[in-house]
């Protein structure tokens, strides 16, 4: 069979096209000029020129999380690659499929401290699912196809392909995607049926069951969310979600208890603490969720569905582990449940729901809105209300505003909520929103931001302008690194060391300087109008919403505490000093 001989750069474009890539987020430089030349010569793949390589990766993450496709990044060698590192680790921690092409000095110069050389595969090894250095033009196409396969199958993650310039300029033979069969990598998709039967058996005996679901349900695709909903409906089990899982089960459904964990609801955390059978579905028992491990759900049997064996028994020992894809396992579980005509002790489940009702009645997210100063919770509630019925996507930065967004926004569908959970990267939200808007040009895309975080990737306003991406940045401006201030109040005697947001720009003027629209809300009475205007304007907008500077995010389980030691509000703080063990935790 005659194989096509192409230059490396031609093969890159051909391989990306054959993978169905529509958009690349990138930034040029010497080492990748041959690829940019090929980009110039074609019009199948769109290139979005970001203003910082970190933003390219976050944008690719936003694109990926909102579409289920692989996000693609292209950066140059040296500083281009190192700037991308934070984004890569972010994608790694949150299991987001990204393929990142990095330029490299020509092979004969590797190791010589050549201009703009970095040991990219060395640097990115611990922050990627896998990485490659291509040293043979004939292996280039196969490597790219393999990288896409690795990035999106099993537990998704970022993959780096380092491309020396001589490989890009030299010739090689092209291989299509169909021939890829990986030598060693074989993720397990179907769950072991014996285990699934065992799980159904455990669940049918449960008196206080709980479904604890996470980002893995989103990773598995929208069908998995539907199956989860179906399973929850046929069993009438309560559902709680992690920060990464929001949207995997309808947020407005009465069976939803709200988010679990450090800033989760009272009812979700108490249900977690008191349940007798827990099914963890595509979640990873993160320390933000478990609290103190030896007090975590002490009287429960645990079932864990996860595609990655290393997530199982990592932090919490479980009784029944099912390795496989959430969608596939849930499908089998529903079948087994039906065929066995399994059902739970209805009286016990009633009593459990009654108990949950009592916890709910504490109304843990309650806050007091006065008639002047805007409470951040109120602003978010209005934002939630006024965006209902539209196709809306929310991203966030990192901090208190992120937690309030998780608490007060409602997600009825998966893939609509984008946040940096595992790494907690300030500066994630704006570029992620940009990636979402590229994928969904007609949707309403809003980055809920803090005034400190937004400064970390503010340069991307320029990208929004260039590509007419009408992303809305909604800043909850408390003039503090609020989350830091809250911890200092709780743990460091209120000594607010370096957590005040000094010398802030005038965000309205800043928006205007970029050519975008700037809006401001200072009083409660202005909130609705500003939100409505923000939605109506079909251009990038920055809203500077001045909120209460001293508001803290509750409920809160202080680090090192158990679920039932949750702080519900400011009054709780004094009563319960934080343990020394807790102080060392992050």
């Amino acid at each position, binding site marked *: 069979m005659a194989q096509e001989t192409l230059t490396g750069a031609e093969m890159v474009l051909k391989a990306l096209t054959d993978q169905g890539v529509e958009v690349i987020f990138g930034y040029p430089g010497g080492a990748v000029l041959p690829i940019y030349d090929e980009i110039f010569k074609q019009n199948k793949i769109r290139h979005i020129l970001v203003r910082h390589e970190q933003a390219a990766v976050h944008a690719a993450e936003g694109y990926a999380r909102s579409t289920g496709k692989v996000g693609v990044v292209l950066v140059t060698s040296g500083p281009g690659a190192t700037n991308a590192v934070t984004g890569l680790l972010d994608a790694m921690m949150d299991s987001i499929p990204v393929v990142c092409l990095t330029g490299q000095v020509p092979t004969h110069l590797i190791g010589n401290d050549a201009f703009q050389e970095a040991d990219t595969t060395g640097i990115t*090894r611990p922050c990627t699912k896998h990485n490659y*250095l291509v040293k043979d033009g004939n292996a280039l196409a196969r490597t790219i196809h393999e990288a896409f396969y690795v990035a999106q199958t099993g537990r998704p993650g970022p993959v780096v392909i380092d491309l020396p310039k001589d490989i890009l300029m030299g010739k090689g033979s092209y291989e299509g995607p169909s021939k890829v069969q990986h030598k060693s*990598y074989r993720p397990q998709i179907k769950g072991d049926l014996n285990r699934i039967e065992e799980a159904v058996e455990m669940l049918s005996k449960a008196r206080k069951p709980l479904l604890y679901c996470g980002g893995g349900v989103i990773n598995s695709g929208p069908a998995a969310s539907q199956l989860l909903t179906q399973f929850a409906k046929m069993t009438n089990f309560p559902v709680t979600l992690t920060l990464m899982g929001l949207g995997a089960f309808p947020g407005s459904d009465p069976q939803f208890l709200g988010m679990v964990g450090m800033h989760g609801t009272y009812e979700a955390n108490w249900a977690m603490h008191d349940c007798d059978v827990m099914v963890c579905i595509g979640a990873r028992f993160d320390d933000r969720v478990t609290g103190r491990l030896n007090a975590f759900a002490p009287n429960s049997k645990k079932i864990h569905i996860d595609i990655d064996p*290393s997530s199982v028994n990592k932090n919490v020992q479980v009784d029944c582990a099912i390795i496989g894809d959430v969608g596939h396992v849930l499908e089998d579980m529903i079948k087994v449940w039906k065929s066995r005509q399994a059902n739970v002790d209805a009286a016990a489940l009633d009593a459990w729901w009654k108990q949950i009702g009592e916890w709910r009645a504490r109304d843990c997210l309650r806050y007091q809105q006065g008639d002047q100063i805007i409470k951040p919770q109120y602003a978010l509630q209005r934002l939630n209300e006024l965006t209902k019925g539209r196709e809306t996507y929310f991203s966030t930065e990192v901090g208190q505003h992120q937690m309030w967004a998780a608490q007060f926004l409602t997600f009825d569908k998966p893939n609509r909520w984008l946040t940096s959970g595992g790494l907690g990267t300030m500066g994630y939200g704006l570029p992620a929103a940009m990636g979402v808007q590229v994928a969904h040009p007609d949707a309403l895309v809003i980055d809920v931001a803090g005034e400190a975080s937004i400064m970390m990737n503010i340069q991307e306003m320029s990208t929004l302008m260039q590509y007419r991406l009408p992303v809305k940045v909604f800043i909850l401006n408390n003039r503090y690194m609020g989350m830091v201030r809250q911890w200092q109040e709780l743990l460091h005697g209120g000594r607010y060391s370096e957590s005040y947001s000094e010398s802030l720009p005038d965000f309205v003027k800043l928006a205007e300087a970029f050519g975008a629209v700037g809006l401001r809300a200072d009083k409660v009475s202005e909130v609705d109008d500003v939100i409505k205007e923000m939605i109506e304007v079909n251009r990038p907008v920055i809203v500077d919403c001045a909120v209460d500077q001293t508001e803290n995010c509750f409920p809160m389980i202080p680090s090192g505490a158990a679920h039932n030691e949750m702080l519900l509000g400011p009054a709780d703080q004094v009563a319960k000093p934080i343990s020394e063990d807790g102080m060392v935790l992050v």
Partner: protein
Amino acid sequence: MMQKEEIVRHTFSVLVNNEAGVLARVIGLFSGRGYNIDSLTVAEVDVHEKLSRITIVTSGTPMIIEQIKAQLGRLVPVHKVRDLTVEGPHVSRELALVKVVGSGEKRVESLRIADIFRARVVDSTNESFVFEIVGATEKLDAFINLMEPLGLADVSRTGVAAIARGPKPL
């Protein structure tokens, strides 16, 4: 805080693609996650398929040992991970080259002990021997300890190679 758990030692056999960076991945995994490496050996074992076999002796709590196995399995170029310690009886061997410098009674004594341990003399001068000894890690430890007072000057060990007993391959 977790309850204190006993520390156990396990031997893993890992079959990997013999490609650039694969050893760095394995070692980086251990250092990055704070696991112990008591011994690590690697060499190509299948020239046609380009496969290398890594033998790792590690220690940790049972939960850590389970994590290590899962984390190794997660590396893309890894074909198989076997915990030889839990998967039945296995043989492990190590080779050491031990240089002993001395004269007179001590020199004679070192030869006598080498004989008991079935160590071979692979180099000798008027004032030194190099012994080659093969066996389980404990045997090598014992031999080296005995050589200490007899003029032990230098030791080079290969690390452990291990394989399951019986007819089944990896």
